[in-house]
């Protein structure tokens, strides 16, 4: 009997070793360990054995069983892993196919640029002010020291609606409006972004409508050097810390002294290229110390306070930031353009 058990065990282990899949393995389990298996019938007949043989053979039988079971379990794990491998192989896909993407929208590059500008000035403690796009001649020109027939009005050909009302040509009227909303020489630190309108032909560098940001700081003791430092901070944050700034004397009726502000060319870093026409500099904004008449006209006393003001074109900055060479792309609204931002 001992031998018989040994034989059964051997043939079971051999069969397990040979088995190819889980179904086969299961039938081996039934055949060798099932209720009708040889080992089962041996167990059943154990009772017929002598009392000395019974424990010994019982143990042998049990050990054989355990050994077969453990072989079965081991083989099962082996076969399961093999089968999973097989299954995974058949599930292989072309991972180079494009993924499934949601449609996303895009902010206009002018909005993106304006948002960055706003953020820089908000962080410096400026408020953001607004004013109407259809404006009075008084706020657009006269309150800025530009009386009627002033030759500097030629610089800004305007869309008039009546003799006294026009599409604002600059965001500067918001200066005067903000000043007049304050009293007692209260300090002001503001920017005014917005659409402005000029009677310019529509071409690669001109547009009848564009976007400007006006800035105004009024307080006791504001100096021309404060303007320079403020614009330097702004331009370095916009064009990178290596950007250099250059001030050139200019003329605006609402500032004295007045300056054009250049930034080192963002394309060639000042070496000269086609974008800066070889000069290494790009004209980026106009600025100056607020003219005493402008302060006076809006209720501020130039003997007590002084201020600086600046105005910059958002399109220009966006064009330099993104390398755009035709202004019309902004107002063409071709989705192939808009989706790039």
């Amino acid at each position: 009997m001992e031998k018989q058990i040994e034989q059964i065990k051997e043939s079971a282990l051999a069969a397990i070793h040979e088995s190819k899949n889980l179904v086969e393995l299961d039938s081996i389990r039934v055949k060798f360990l099932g209720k009708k298996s040889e080992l089962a019938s041996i167990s059943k007949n154990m009772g017929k054995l002598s009392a000395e043989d019974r424990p010994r053979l019982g143990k042998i039988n049990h050990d054989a069983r355990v050994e077969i079971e453990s072989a079965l379990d081991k083989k099962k794990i082996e076969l399961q892993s093999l089968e999973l491998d097989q299954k995974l192989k058949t599930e292989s896909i072309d991972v180079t196919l494009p993924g499934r993407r949601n449609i996303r929208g895009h902010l206009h590059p002018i909005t993106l640029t304006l948002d960055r500008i706003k953020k820089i000035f908000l962080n410096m403690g400026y408020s953001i002010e607004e004013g109407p796009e259809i404006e009075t001649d008084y706020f657009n020109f006269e309150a800025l020291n530009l009386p009627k027939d002033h030759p500097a009005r030629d610089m800004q050909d305007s869309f008039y609606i009546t003799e006294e009302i026009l599409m604002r040509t600059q965001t500067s009227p918001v200066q005067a409006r903000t000043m007049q909303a304050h009293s007692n020489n209260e300090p002001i630190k503001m920017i005014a972004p917005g659409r402005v309108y000029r009677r310019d032909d529509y071409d690669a560098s001109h547009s009848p409508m564009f976007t400007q940001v006006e800035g105004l700081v009024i307080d006791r003791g504001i100096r021309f050097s404060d303007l320079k430092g403020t614009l330097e901070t702004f331009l370095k944050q916009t064009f990178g810390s290596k950007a250099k700034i250059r001030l050139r004397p200019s003329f605006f009726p609402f500032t004295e002294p007045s300056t054009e502000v250049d930034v080192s060319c963002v394309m060639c870093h000042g070496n000269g290229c086609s974008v800066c026409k070889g000069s290494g500099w790009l004209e980026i904004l106009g600025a100056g110390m607020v003219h005493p008449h402008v302060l006076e006209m809006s209720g501020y006393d130039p003997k007590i306070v002084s201020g600086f003001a600046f105005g910059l074109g958002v399109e220009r900055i966006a064009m330099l930031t993104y390398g755009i060479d035709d202004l019309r792309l902004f107002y063409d609204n071709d989705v192939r353009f808009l989706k790039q931002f």
Partner: protein
Amino acid sequence: MQVSLNWLRDYIDIDCSAEELAEKLTMAGIPVENLIREDAGLEKVITGRVEKMEKHPDSDHMWICQMNVGKFSENLVQIVTGAQNVHEGDIVPVAMVGADLPCGKKISKGKLRGVASNGMLCSPDELNVEGGHDGILILPRDTEIGIQAGKILGKDDVIFEFELTANRGDCFSVEGLIREIGVLTGKNPKYPDLNVVEDDSDSTQDLIKIEIADPDLCSRFSARVLKNVKLGESPEWMKRRLEGAGIRSINNVVDVTNFVMVELGQPMHAYDYDQIAGKILTARKSVKGEQLHTLDDSNRLAKGDELVIADSEKAAGLAGIMGGLETEITESTTTVVLEAANFNSTSIRRTSRSVGLHSEASGRFERGVDISKTIKSLDRAAKLLQDMNACTVTRGIVDCYPVKKSETSIDFTCDKINSRLGTQIDESKIIEILKSLDFVVENLDEDGSYRAIVPMHRINDVKVWEDLSEEIARIVGYDQIPSTLPFGDSTQGHQSEQQDFIDKIRSILTSLGMCEELSFGFTNPETLDKLQVPGDSYLRNAIPIMNPLTDEFPLVRTTLLGGILENASRNFSRKNEDVRLFEVAPVFHPKSLPITELPREIWKLAGILFGRRDRVAWNSSKDELDFFDAKGIVEELLSQLSISNYQVERGDHFALHPGRTAFFKKGREIIATVGEVHPNVLKSFGISKRAFIFEMDIEILRKYIGKNFKYESLPKFPGIVRDIAMLVDENIPALEIEQIISKNGGKFFQEVTLFDLYQGKQISEGKKSLAFTIKFQSPEKTLTDEEVDESFRNILAAVEKKFNAELRG
């Protein structure tokens, strides 16, 4: 304003390059826009001597020349030429390798029939100089070799083109420019020679009478008379100076008036004395309707506000703009009246605009001319013509100057100037700069108060001490201004709630797949027609622009829909067929037309979408967007803005499909419109796909933003879900069924969701199949089926009764 370097050099030593000078002037507020070099293209053309010449071995007409180009090459330069007029010992212009000639030829190393040639001998044509075209230009034997040929060909001048600012009228003259150059370079300019000899015995005042009828428009009128005038050509040097200033030479008299205008900045005019009726010139306003017969041979009818110079019979010219034809200088002129006057800049500007004539003279008057210049320029002009032996000069100047202009003085302290600039410039330096700019500076007392008397040529520009600070800053150099930041109380940056709200809307809409567009604030009647805006709609009350640029933009927009459809249309025509655009911008509604006060500016949001719902991809659906995509965007936007409890109703909108338009309402107020674009509107805009738009008013939306959002606690107990499916008439709105369900849902009713809608096969015509899922929930316990059964039965009964619904298993 343009002027040549050589003209400036007549009066001041310039020892820097033209480029350096341009830079200095630009950085001092006299912007040089452009430099035009006469020797452009001649930089690499060098004078050279033919040292040796031999016949080309393989050609019967070519010569191999060995050229000595002095310091430009240690060795002789071999050049092959086909010219036959060159001999050993000749000095000729040699274009070196790399030259880019005025004729367009570019010179490079080459071989001519196997023989190396390192340049080209040049003909006059190739250098764009006079001298015929037969062969090479042979220069005089004593010409220095190894120098740039431009120098000996008289092509060494540089034209300065200025882009002067409106305040610097004084720099519209050589005199003004040399004054500035003197201050910037430390050299002393000499000024034009005014020493005229009055060599005619006649007295000027016996010959001509001058009157000013309107001293507001003409503040000074001075004149000289020249006799025995010999009209002829101007000398070569004067022609070249004028050419450099962009002025054509006409004859010596006219040229001299132009020359003096550029030199001293005072526009002048010359009259034929014999043609002046009554021997009187009067500066007066025109009489409405009188004939203005000007030099350009055009007849204008006076409007009555132009300033004219008239004799006793007729207007003899538009003052300061253009002279009259009858009194023009001609071949037969023997006596000339020279006019130098000072006209009101505003009047000149208006007249020049209204008649469309802009001249060198009008440009100068518009910016303001120094009133002291009339006498100087008459003397200078007479002196120049006298030097040409072209006239005799009568005794005296007739000078009509009714109200003498007073000088301006400004009190200042150097501390004020330094504190405005943020600098610490020495007091002595400040005074020195002002003096160098011709200000007279007086020390008022010990404590540093000064008085500056403004020179006449700057009185239009320098009026307050702040103006003096600019003079100091620009001469010291803006690069010398330090960089500082304002020191005041720190402030908190902020923007308005409306700005925050608009930023939020932009961000939500982009997250929903919409692209932001920007369009012009204009429109035109055709666009409103295309949108089917009814004739009596307030949207037709668009504000007209007085001076529109083109027919395209005659009106200010009253709606964003025009712009948004135009942009959609442009995209469609470019085969961009999947488009989702939105814009947040103001529209303009006048309170009345024509407007007498500022219009209302109303911020609106509008969007359009058409094309495929998903990206084009191998695994995406090819379904097109529909009404419910647009409506979904509106619902999601409102939800993210915490706007709830609105009603959605069928709407009626001129530009939208009558059966596919919805209004979102709060009470009677429409907070959003969404719909499919009317097929006729689509057709007008050339879009052949169904498109959907939405529109909202920012102000109205803002009124309904939910405030103080608080979260809802999560249910602690599981709820029960029941589905209900039914057949109803197809025209029963799903919303009404949902309302009945929620009304009859009992106390545990939580929510109802439509999850299926079907019409078509297996459903009888005129019917639709709807399926809802209904959720019941209790905050206190786990619900049992029994607790829900009754509510569910009530729902079924109500739906059946109300809608005659056929309930389905």
